């Protein structure tokens, strides 16, 4: 039996692996891609936070430092490997390029991340309509410009940041539409694209994407306070790419399979596996961290991964309860900081609610 298997090599999984390996736990990190790092390597902007959160450092630089740390600590990494199931007693079904096999681990961390939400409108299935994160992967990882003239849908941080990165890659963002009457992401991100000439149109929506076989144009329009289109305000714009940035949802299939209990929290992306302060789910020995435990950001995923890693080292007897508590307190404090202010306090409240529900189940 393996000691720990971590599913997903993004910031959460990497940090869970690093943190438990730091105390001597033998860890296997599994990722279906040919390189760990998850979505960190497409984050080319500087992160917010304080020095402890590596603020002011670009996402891919954080990714590189996590990779070298995990190498130094001897984390075993299985790449191009898919985890297709979790079964009773911590058995994992994995598929490598050559074979399919079943492995058992004392502890499992699910750090599978999230998937972008689609948005349905006439023409939404045309080639040339894609997730904003997809556009980011295309330009920052694949180094292929996903479009020359772009319509961005959604003014959350993803929509704003990806718009900026599209400009950096050499594209023109013709417009950014937001259904709400105000910009929902950080105004500093909005200001960056505004002074670069991007029109940010609040109370606007996409009516359709059009073109024979692929996107050639889009129609946008104004909407009223009931989100109904105002007739006569339609405007056709010439674009070759429509990017959708309307939120994400957790990739939680493995947790469902494992029999974890869930709660439904729309603001965190939908169904969320209940978890303790140590990130353990209702199935003993199975932990979650990062977006799968509620959509947040890379900096919170890093801290949640650490928490799971420390808790695992503790429960396997590699560190004392006292030492573990001290280490965990640092991450809890760090998470509290990241969940402050008008953008974070809602997430703190829902995370508290998850904890409350988890605790009430465990007192029964």
């Amino acid at each position: 039996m393996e000691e720990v298997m971590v599913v997903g090599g993004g910031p959460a999984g990497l940090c869970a692996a690093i943190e438990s390996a730091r105390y001597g736990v033998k860890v296997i990190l599994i990722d279906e891609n040919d390189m760990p790092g998850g979505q960190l390597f497409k984050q080319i902007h500087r992160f917010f936070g304080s020095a402890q959160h590596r603020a002011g450092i670009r996402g891919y630089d954080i990714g590189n430092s996590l990779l070298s740390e995990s190498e130094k600590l001897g984390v075993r990494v299985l790449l191009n490997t898919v985890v297709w199931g979790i079964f009773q007693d911590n058995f994992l079904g994995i598929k490598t390029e050559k074979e399919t096999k079943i492995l058992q681990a004392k502890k499992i961390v699910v750090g599978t991340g999230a998937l972008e939400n689609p948005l349905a409108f006439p023409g939404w299935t045309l080639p040339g309509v894609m997730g904003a994160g997809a556009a980011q992967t295309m330009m920052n990882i694949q180094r292929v410009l996903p479009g020359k003239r772009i319509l961005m849908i959604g003014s959350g941080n993803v929509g704003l940041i990806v718009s900026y990165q599209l400009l950096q890659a050499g594209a023109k963002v013709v417009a950014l539409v937001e259904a709400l009457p105000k910009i929902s992401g950080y105004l500093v991100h909005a200001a960056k694209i505004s002074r670069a000439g991007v029109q940010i149109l609040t109370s606007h929506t996409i009516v359709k994407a059009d073109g024979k076989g692929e996107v050639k144009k889009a129609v946008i329009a104004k909407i009223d306070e009931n989100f109904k289109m105002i007739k006569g305000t339609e405007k056709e714009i010439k674009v070759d790419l429509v990017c959708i940035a309307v939120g994400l949802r957790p990739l939680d299939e493995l947790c469902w399979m494992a029999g974890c209990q869930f709660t439904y929290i729309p603001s965190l992306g939908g169904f969320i596996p209940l978890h303790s302060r140590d990130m353990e789910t209702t199935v003993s020995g199975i932990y979650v961290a990062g977006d799968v435990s509620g959509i947040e950001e890379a900096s919170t995923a890093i801290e949640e991964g650490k928490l799971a890693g420390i808790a695992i080292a503790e429960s396997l007897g590699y560190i004392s309860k006292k030492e573990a508590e001290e280490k965990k307190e640092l991450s809890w404090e760090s998470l509290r900081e990241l969940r402050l202010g008008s953008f974070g306090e809602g997430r703190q409240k829902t995370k508290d609610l998850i904890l409350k529900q988890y605790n009430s189940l465990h007192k029964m």
Partner: protein
Amino acid sequence: MKDLRIKKHPILGEAKFGKKITIFVDGKKFSAYEGEMIASALYAKGIRKLRATSKFKEPRGIFCAIGRCTDCVMTVNGVPNIRTCITPVQSGMRVKTQKGLGKWKK
């Protein structure tokens, strides 16, 4: 001929593309670079339609680019339903626009 590859980037610097190789797209010779994913190599040259749906024959292309949504599946070396956004190109690879659910090579 248009090429959407980003050679210079203000943050990421100069791109390091791999060795130039030849693959076959719907039977035609097609240049790509080692390390690229099939879908992005095609996209770079303006090929955005990767398959057609079974019933209405509607075109589909890249949607999530991280191997989750399966909108980009094509028939690769005779095997249908390959997620081309996360499958790297290989010299001599045969890539086919997929119709519907595709067919296994007999």
